[in-house]
């Protein structure tokens, strides 16, 4: 029972971490909470769903399609909605409000065009669980866990070992100086959104498979936001640790205490963090967070 709960918690935590990483990447560069991120996750899930159930192309295509689709949408999002504001040197508060607007707009576009149906993915991972030390572990949880960890580790390698990744970290500290070093900031911002979008697509697929695909599924990113705050907004290791921590704690609370109190617990946790440790576990700066 304990092991089973732990694996489930880790896998949910892994998906939270995927989402939180997208938040943190954008926050680290542009210093605002991109509330449209959840909507991109939702749209990624739709892309993946339609590829697998309407085009019948199989899981690999669905996964790749969702990642590419979400990445393209994320770039469109930044080019159409954020870039005009960034060029006018708008403060990050305006960017955040715009992100909320984008999120509401896209969600309602889905209602108008696709409708408010709930779609469930066809069976991809076998429902039969794997027996392991007297615990039943679902293959989906295992795969979600593996995919999250591999992709986050890949991102870590990209950010620490490549020139472009180093430029992203540099620009997250000082954008003006990065442009003095020859970094084309608008291009770098696009790269950041491609990364965040890809992670959104990946998270969208796993959320869609585990739960369902519907217009408001993006609101689950509230949890990813909590994870990012716990870990420290803008910090990538923080986002990962926050996500895993939240996933595991939530699962243990719902198994050992009560599943109705789960969300109360998560939101109380974020309040406690904001009061006592506002920078999160690994946060860097405290000035002006929106």
């Amino acid at each position, binding site marked *: 029972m304990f092991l089973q709960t732990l694996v489930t918690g880790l896998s949910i935590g892994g998906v939270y971490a995927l989402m939180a990483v997208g938040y943190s990447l954008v926050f680290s560069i542009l210093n605002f909470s991109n509330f449209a991120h959840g909507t991109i996750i939702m749209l990624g899930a739709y892309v993946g769903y339609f590829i697998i159930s309407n085009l019948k192309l199989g899981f690999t295509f669905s996964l790749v399609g969702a990642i590419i689709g979400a990445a393209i949408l994320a770039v469109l999002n930044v080019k159409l909605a954020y870039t005009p504001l960034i060029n006018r040197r708008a403060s990050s508060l305006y960017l955040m409000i715009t992100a909320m607007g984008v999120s509401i707009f896209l969600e309602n576009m889905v209602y108008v065009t696709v409708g408010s149906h709930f779609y469930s993915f066809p069976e991809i991972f076998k429902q039969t669980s794997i027996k392991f030390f007297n615990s039943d572990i679902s293959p989906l949880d295992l795969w979600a866990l593996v995919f999250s960890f591999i992709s986050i580790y890949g991102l870590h390698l990209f950010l620490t070992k490549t020139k472009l990744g180093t430029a992203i970290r540099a620009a*997250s500290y000082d954008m003006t100086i990065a442009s003095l*070093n020859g970094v084309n900031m608008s291009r770098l911002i696009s790269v950041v959104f491609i990364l965040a979008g890809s992670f959104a697509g990946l998270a969208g697929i796993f959320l869609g498979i585990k739960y369902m695909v519907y217009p408001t599924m993006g609101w689950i990113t509230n949890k990813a936001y909590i994870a990012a705050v716990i870990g420290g907004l803008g910090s990538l290791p923080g986002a990962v640790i926050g996500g895993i921590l939240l996933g595991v704690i939530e699962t243990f609370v719902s198994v050992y205490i009560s599943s109705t109190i789960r969300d109360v617990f998560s939101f109380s946790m974020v309040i406690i963090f904001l009061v006592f440790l506002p920078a999160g576990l690994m946060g860097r700066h405290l000035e002006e967070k929106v």
Partner: protein
Amino acid sequence: MLKVQNINVYYGRIHALKDLSIDIDQGKIVTIVGANGAGKSTLMWTLAGVLKAKSGTMTFMGKPYPPNAHEAAAKGIVLVPERRRLYANLTVKENLMMGAFLRKDHEGIKKDLYYVYSLFPILKERTNQYAGTLSGGEQQMTAIARGLMSRPKILLLDEPSLGLSPIYTAEVFKTIQEINAQGTTILLAEQNAKKALEIAHSAYVLETGRMVLSGTGKELLSDPRVQEAYLGVRHKTI
């Protein structure tokens, strides 16, 4: 090499540079002296492409001036800003490599890394340390080294001696001359007017956004107005 004619630059609402003209010849050390708030940094940020001139003309190597910071960097105009502005979250080596961001000649980058390590041996010891943990002097060296890693055609140095001990200051000025001897043109903005004028081939005096004097370094060193205002020499009132 770099020509600026009658530019006007506004910093918010403040008219920071007024009808300012300078002319920098290739291979020279040119110094801008002036008090706090005279507009030295504004001029530097404008030349680096971060601030925009409202009017006036600017050319670089006879061609129209690059329109923004990253294109200026690509053309070889490199600013080492006031107060270093290192990436504190990156290591010394990563900071230096950010200087070489636009370069693709791996051999050349390696060579230049050796060169800056030979200029500043202490940086080699600190290579994997986060830049935020360095002392002020070491940070200044890293900032200059990062600028050199861009292989600049012209190096804009804004207050390189700010906050440094006299020993470090002497070392920095010695290095500036060394870099210049290698063929890099240098524009130096300094409050330490005496030291700056001593090494300058030509110099300008900036006062509240206007160029009030220009000449060779020696001429300005012996100019009574400069001596009184910037070098602490008292002349008898006439």
